[in-house]
């Protein structure tokens, strides 16, 4: 019955491999719904996106609700357009919602912060493919320093 023992050992080997994959997938990687759950897209135009990249997180109050799926330049004036893929779980944003590009920590990576707007009878909810018009661009340190120095000179 040597071949049966061999088969048993190989079977165990494969099971160990699957367990390792499950461990890596469930314990080490993000099991976020966003990678496979249902999503919808929102768009926002910025003047300057700073260091934002594709796959940067979209957060509401620090909680990740989606990711930046595409960054492109559109229109005659080449404005940066950011496409955000957001989980269907959070689909009740009103069209008064504003977006800003924020930095996590002093030196951290940049992410998009969504600030949900007020809701009453007159505002509509954002749906797949809608644009958010209330946007705040990334803070670019060089511009800030430039403005500060310029302001100093006028005094």
């Amino acid at each position, binding site marked *: 019955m040597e071949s049966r023992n061999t088969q048993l050992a*190989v079977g165990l*080997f494969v099971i160990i491999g699957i367990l*390792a994959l499950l*461990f890596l*997938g469930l314990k*080490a*990687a993000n099991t976020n719904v966003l990678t496979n759950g249902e999503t919808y897209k929102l768009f926002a135009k910025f003047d300057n996106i700073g260091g934002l990249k594709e796959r940067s997180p979209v957060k509401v109050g620090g909680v990740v609700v989606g990711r930046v799926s595409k960054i492109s330049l559109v229109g005659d004036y080449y404005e940066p357009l950011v496409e955000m893929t957001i989980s269907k779980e959070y689909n009740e944003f009103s069209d008064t919602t504003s977006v800003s590009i924020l930095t996590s920590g002093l030196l951290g990576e940049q992410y998009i912060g969504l600030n949900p707007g007020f809701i009453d009878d007159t505002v509509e909810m954002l749906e797949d493919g809608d644009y958010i018009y209330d946007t705040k661009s990334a803070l670019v340190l060089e511009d800030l320093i430039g403005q500060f120095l310029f302001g100093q000179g006028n005094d």
Partner: protein
Amino acid sequence: MLNRVAALGKVTLDAIAGAGAALFMLMRALFGKPQLRKSWPLLMQQMYSVGVLSLLIIVVSGLFIGMVLGLQGYTILVDFGAEQSLGPMVALSLLRELGPVVTALLFAGRAGSALTAEIGLMKATEQLSSLEMMGVDPLRRVISPRFWAGFYSMPILALVFSAVGIYGGYLVGVRWLGVDDGAFWSVMQSNVEWGQDILNGVIKSLVFAFVVTWIALHKGYQCTPTSVGISRATTSTVVTASLAVLGLDFVLTALMFG
């Protein structure tokens, strides 16, 4: 002078002939009429000797490499007060690089050399010719199951290596050095992606499995059937396979994460 040029020409021709022979061997071994009932027990036998028996060295070295990563990472990260990034550092370096690469190197040493020596000895003792005399294609009977066994085993081994390594990093970082337990896992989870990290690691180990097993089988099949020839072929397997893995790793990393 002309002799030098002729020598260069001979080396080039030999290299091309060798590559062609290797390719033909692979094609003939892989693309034949599949005979599942006959080849299944052969595959199981090889999965056992190539995969299962490599498990111990993979687990032990994975554990130690994970522990070393945890220790070294901690001493550097703690200077910046960023020891909570230990989790993603250990996990990403294992999943993206060390898991597939070190597994492939160990696999080349542990299983690749054994495959070369086994097939070389079969050739030296004319077992391969005897098979042909009996009307059995040695490529299908001997080479093919070994190739598939290596191809299937290596990704499993690489996954086990990464998983055990992360656990080793956890043991050192959290249990010994006192990184916060929750932060270790949650920062890791927010940084490791299924597709970007785990899947690319598996793709890498599949490529390495293909290359290492192919080189090992080819070196054995083409070796000079003497004791010196077998010893040279075995050494050459380990050296060539290791260099191929390291070189390919750079190319794959540049393609995947560049």
